[in-house]
Structure formats: structure tokens, C-alpha cells
């Protein structure tokens, strides 16, 4: 047994064990970000074009995802989705827990990104789209060449914030028994009765990643802005 409540040296003993689970955390973050961005863009377009029925469904979906805690969503997806699919004769009860965790974070990210994308797309003056049509661009060409690049630049800061928030949010995946960085903290804590060192180790990892993300996004934005001289 080690002495005292907190032993700094132990942090460094735990750190490699925590880092060994970092790939799991990153897998959740990266997959949910990419799939969530695609889903968010679809939702944003449904909202912008006021697609009948789908638009109302999107509104309800987005408020639900933004208005309920991620822990609630994790459990609803983990128990609810297999239950729903069971009714149509599909059995996914034995699928890996990680699948449900990634699905939850993807669904959650999509809802947040939908609003970011919608606001960003709306903020590009509509006159530019008209000018694009007038010179002969199709709707898709106009979106790809004129609207999307400008919207992306506007959305960039929010996307950075969202990514940092998602990273923090993954700290709840352990509630379903996933051994990611936080899962490892809990595993160590229950095996050794030492709590604080694991949490401090996790704090170091999360903080380092967050700062790196912030710096990275800042740099991308600065590069784009310089190129465009706003």
C-alpha cells in the first residue's frame, strides 16, 4: 500500500496504462466526428430545404439530442436500438458494446453539427448563389464551389469547440463498460483503491489533446483567412 491520498510518482506509473487505451477513445472521437459530420450535413440540408415531414422529424431529433444528457442517450441506444430491431427480426444483442457507444456519439454529434452547418450555410449571402446560377453553375456545383467553402470557414470555430466537447463527452462511455482512457481509470481505481492518480493522469491526457486541438484549429483557420484576406 502506498502512503497518503495522492502520490505524484504513481501518476507516471499509471500514465502508460492509460495511454494504451487512448486508441479506443480516439476511435470513438474520430468515427463519431466523421460520420456525425455527414449526418449533420444531411440534417442541415433537410432543415434548409424544409423537406416536408423530414424537416419536422429533424427538428424533434435535434432538440432531443441537444436536450438530454449523453449518459441517457448511451443507455437508450444500448438497450433501445436492439429492442427496436428485435421487433423487425434483427438480432444485434451480441454486437460489441463499442458499436453502440460509437453510434450514440455519432447520433449526438450529428445533431450538434446540423445546427452549426445550418447557421453557417445560411450566413452565406444568397446573392452569391444567384450569381452562380446566372453564370451557369448547377445547384450542386454552386454548393460545392461557392457555398460550402465559405460556410466551412464560418463553421470552423464551432467545429473545433464541438470536437473538444466530444472528446470530453467520451469520458462517459465507461458507463457501458468500455475500456477507453476513462474506463481504464476506473479499472485501476477499483483494483488498487487509488483514485486520484488515475484521474490526474486522465486530466493530463485530455488537457494535452484539447490544447493540441485548439492550436490545430486556430492554425487551420488562420491559414484559410490569410489566403482569403478577410
Amino acid at each position, binding site marked *: 500500500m502506498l502512503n497518503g491520498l495522492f502520490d505524484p510518482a504513481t501518476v507516471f506509473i499509471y500514465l502508460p496504462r492509460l495511454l494504451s487505451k487512448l486508441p479506443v477513445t480516439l476511435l470513438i472521437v474520430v468515427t463519431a466526428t466523421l460520420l456525425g459530420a455527414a449526418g449533420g450535413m444531411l440534417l442541415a440540408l433537410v432543415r434548409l430545404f424544409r423537406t416536408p415531414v423530414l424537416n419536422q422529424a429533424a427538428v424533434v431529433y435535434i432538440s432531443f439530442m441537444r436536450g438530454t444528457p449523453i449518459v441517457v442517450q448511451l443507455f437508450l441506444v444500448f438497450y433501445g436500438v436492439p429492442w427496436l430491431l428485435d421487433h423487425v427480426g434483427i438480432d444485434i444483442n451480441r454486437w460489441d458494446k463499442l458499436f453502440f457507444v460509437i453510434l450514440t456519439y455519432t447520433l449526438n454529434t450529428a445533431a450538434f453539427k446540423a445546427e452549426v452547418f445550418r447557421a453557417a450555410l445560411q450566413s452565406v*449571402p444568397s*446573392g*452569391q448563389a*444567384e*450569381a*452562380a*446560377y*446566372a*453564370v*451557369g*453553375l*448547377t445547384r450542386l*456545383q454552386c454548393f460545392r*464551389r*461557392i457555398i460550402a*467553402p*465559405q460556410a466551412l*470557414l464560418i463553421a470552423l470555430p464551432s467545429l473545433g469547440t464541438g470536437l473538444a466537447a466530444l472528446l470530453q463527452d467520451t469520458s462517459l462511455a465507461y458507463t457501458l463498460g468500455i475500456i477507453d482512457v476513462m474506463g481504464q481509470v476506473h479499472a485501476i481505481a477499483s483494483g488498487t483503491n487509488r483514485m486520484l492518480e488515475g484521474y490526474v493522469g486522465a486530466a493530463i491526457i485530455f488537457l494535452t489533446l484539447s490544447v493540441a486541438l485548439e492550436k490545430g484549429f486556430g492554425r487551420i483557420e488562420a491559414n484559410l483567412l490569410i489566403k*482569403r*484576406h*478577410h
Partner: protein
Amino acid sequence: MIEIRDIHKTFGHNLVLKGVDLKVDKGEVVVIVGPSGSGKTTLLRCINFLERADAGEISIGDTHVAFRQATARQVSTIRKQTAMVFQNYNLFNNMTALGNVMEGLVTARKVPKKEAEAVSRAVLDQVGLADKCDAYPSQLSGGQQQRVGIARALALNPEVILFDEPTSALDPELVGEVLSVMKAVARKHITMVVVTHEMSFALEIASRVIFMDGGVVVEEGAPQEIFLRPKEERTRQFLRRILPETDYTI
């Protein structure tokens, strides 16, 4: 040549165009004047299919199309033969002046990049902006932005260029540079339909002036006739409002 017959357009319960005819010969410069809300912008937008007219037909060159029934392919054919210069310039903010002018050629018309760039540099030179090719819209004055807008239209070599109040968003001291570019364009016998209240431009350049009010053409004729000897009372009223000095000559 461009001919529009009996164009109608309604927004909700608001009858905006109530059967307008417009015929413009090759090389003609037609100026449209009229009070705010009389349907001038809507007319130009319908010609370019930015707005879908409810009834009427359009012929440009060899293309004849009924507005209401026009297919996507016909719309694109008409758009290829028309170009638009907007009141608020509407430049693509994510592209340089050169990029703005090249976009229609490269992306829509699939002109090879090298060729498109040569054409675009030439028209930017024509509007006096050879040294601003690499500038983004945010680095240009309003007058320069509008000249890029005109270059963007010229590059497409359309049958007709539609101008919607091209100088009305500009600071007064920048109006001159845009008007002189437009005059130079007119001298090249490019067909132009211009909504503007710049009398100097109309008197000097226009082949014909059309006065619109309440969604119809009230009167049309040579600039001197419309401005100095208008036949219709509505035209006189309108001119009294925009040219206060005519008050004193009556």
C-alpha cells in the same frame, strides 16, 4: 436578338408583371426606368430564370421557350446566352477577381483552365482591373467589385447582358468608373438591357428607353422623347420625381 412576349409573374396575390413585351435587337442598349416596385428587377430575374415567370415566352437567338414549361436543359440554354450584373455585385467572396471571372467558364462551360484564364485576364484588363486579378472581393472598392461583376458577365460572351441598377449601391464618387466601363461595353455593340436611373448614361448611350410602372410598359421611345417630351402623365409624374429641375421648365 432577344424577344419576350406577354410575360406574367405573381408573388402570392401580388401581380408584379402584367403582360410585358420586350424586343431588343442585336447591339441595342435598352434602358428600363420606373418607380421602385414596378417590376424591373423581377423582369430581369425572369429572363435569366432566377425567378420562374407564370406565363409568356422568350426567344433568344435560335432558342424559343415558354417560361412556364421550360425544361432544365432549356433553362440552361437561355442562361448560357444571358449574363447578369447585380445591384449588390454578388461576387464570390471565396475567390479572387480572376477566379470570379473564370468560374462560369471553367466549372459551367468546361473551358480548359489555361484558355479560360487568358480570356478572363483579357476582360479584367478591359474593365481596367488588370492589376487586381489576384485581389479578393473584400480587398476591392465597390466600384472595382462591380467592374469585376461586369467582367464576369463579359467573359461568358452572352447574347445579352442584363444590368440591374448596377450603380445604385455605390458611393457617388464611384459611379463614374462603372458607367464609363458600361459605356465602353456598349460601344462594342454588345446587347444590353439596363435598369438604371442614371440619366446621363441613358441619354448618351441608350438606343431606347422603356418606362415601366405597375408591372406594365407605359411608354417607350428614344431617350430624348421619353425624358424631354413624355406623352403619358405617369411618365411625367415619375420624371418630376427623379429630375426635380423639370419642375421649373413647366
